[in-house]
């Protein structure tokens, strides 16, 4: 399995939300639906507060519980990578995958009713481009690449910087990394 990863530098992110807008535009998301979102986390006690911005989306888990519970195979790994896609022609809308994603990263496409989610813009990745959110980010705090390639930018960053992933304790092996 080729592992693609997204690496986001929380020291640079300003929480502008352009990644969200880029995604909506690129993927022509209907009104009111979103595949990514930005969280502002503040911790500490005044005046010693610290804030981090996190651009979140599907983590394209290496152990994707959504893929395992899907009864039809609609939720699947794309071409032996960790990119998790939903084939709308196979999805029944049973919503088991939604209940089994610890990140609540899935949504129900309106008005059709099949389940939808972040695709890591596989249609761009196929052409050697970055996902829309990554290529739009005005602060260049997002990186995308192949984790198994030690020379890739994402691998280098994860080797040289401190990072965290979200809800690692679920065992889902998420592939969106946050540099701290």
């Amino acid at each position, binding site marked *: 399995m080729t592992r693609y990863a997204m690496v986001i530098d929380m020291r640079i992110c300003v929480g502008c939300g352009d990644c969200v807008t880029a995604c909506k535009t690129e993927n022509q998301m209907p009104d009111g639906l979103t595949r990514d979102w930005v969280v502002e986390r503040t911790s500490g006690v005044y005046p010693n507060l610290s804030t981090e911005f996190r651009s979140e989306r599907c983590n394209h888990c290496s152990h994707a519980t959504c893929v395992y519970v899907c009864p039809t195979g609609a939720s699947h790994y794309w071409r032996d990578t960790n990119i998790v896609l939903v084939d709308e022609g*196979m999805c029944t809308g049973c919503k088991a995958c939604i209940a089994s994603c610890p990140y609540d990263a899935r949504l129900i496409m309106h008005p059709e009713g099949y389940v939808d989610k972040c695709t890591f813009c596989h249609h761009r990745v196929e052409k050697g481009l970055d996902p829309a959110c990554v290529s739009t980010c005005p602060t260049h705090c997002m990186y995308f690449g192949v984790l198994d390639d030690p020379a890739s930018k994402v691998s280098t960053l994860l080797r040289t910087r401190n990072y965290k992933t979200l809800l690692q304790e679920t065992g889902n092996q998420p592939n969106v990394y946050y540099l701290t």
Partner: protein
Amino acid sequence: MIEEVLVTLKANPKIDPVLSTWSWEVPVYLFLGGLTAGIMFFAAIMVLTNRQREVPFMTEKLVLWTVILLSIGMGALFLDLSHRWYVYRFYTAFRPTSPMSWGSWILIIIYPVCILQILSTFRQGYPKLARRLERFGVGVLALDLSERFRRPVAWVSVPFALGLGIYTGVLLNTLVARPFWNTGILPILFLVSALSTASALAILGTSDKGERHLFTRIDFGLIAVEILLVFLLVIDLSAGSEVQLASVDLILGGRYTVAFWILFFSVGLLIPFLLEARELLGKSAAAFYMAPLFVLIGGYLLRQVVMNIGLHSSWSNYANQFDPQLLELLH
């Protein structure tokens, strides 16, 4: 202090701020599936222990309802699908890692088992209908064969009934991102509840005093086990991980406390338990329609309440969620 706020809009319908992906359809299916499992189980066990004549309603009459109840349940499940014209996709794949896939195939196998079970006592239970069936050569053959093999058919029914009863709980249990469901007690609780609701239906429907008494005794025991299991469920979750602790808080003072303890536990378990105890002591026979009615309501409430709590319990909790309703104020 830790505060997590969404700075962009995340208000995907039915996902945010808490899941509300399933409403009444799935609980109705879980309830009717359980009922079917319970009827299949008792009808088969009574045949195997040569008690068929003692419990004619269960083994000869009620057994016909298995296919009807199961079909209504599957109809409810179909209504729940949000991309429903692709329902045939359940049957173009078998996914061994998906409990729902197992379930949909098991349902297909259960139908013929139910039909054989129905036919094996059809002449006694529904003589008029049986005579109609006998007008066809195949009908006579089917009736004769399933009567002859009544015991083997019952043997096959038992594992399928238990499987179906447990499956209704496993379905929720294996959705790993909803901490309230992630306890092994749940499938057992659903199974016992399934058996209890089937006995309740027998108590309600039978005109045979002996049969009513037998099923009241059985049901009394089953409710006692259920009460025990509910406490085990709470203990099990309370000994769990952080998210499980948060989920059990929902019924220990949280927003589902009343629904769980008053609606489900009191109405669905305690009251019928006390009513049936009185009846078994010979104190109040007048209440015998009430107890099974409460059991049936409780059986449904168990599924509905447990499902809602599970959907509410989650791994990702933003302390400060965007409230899409505020947008309405702008218009």
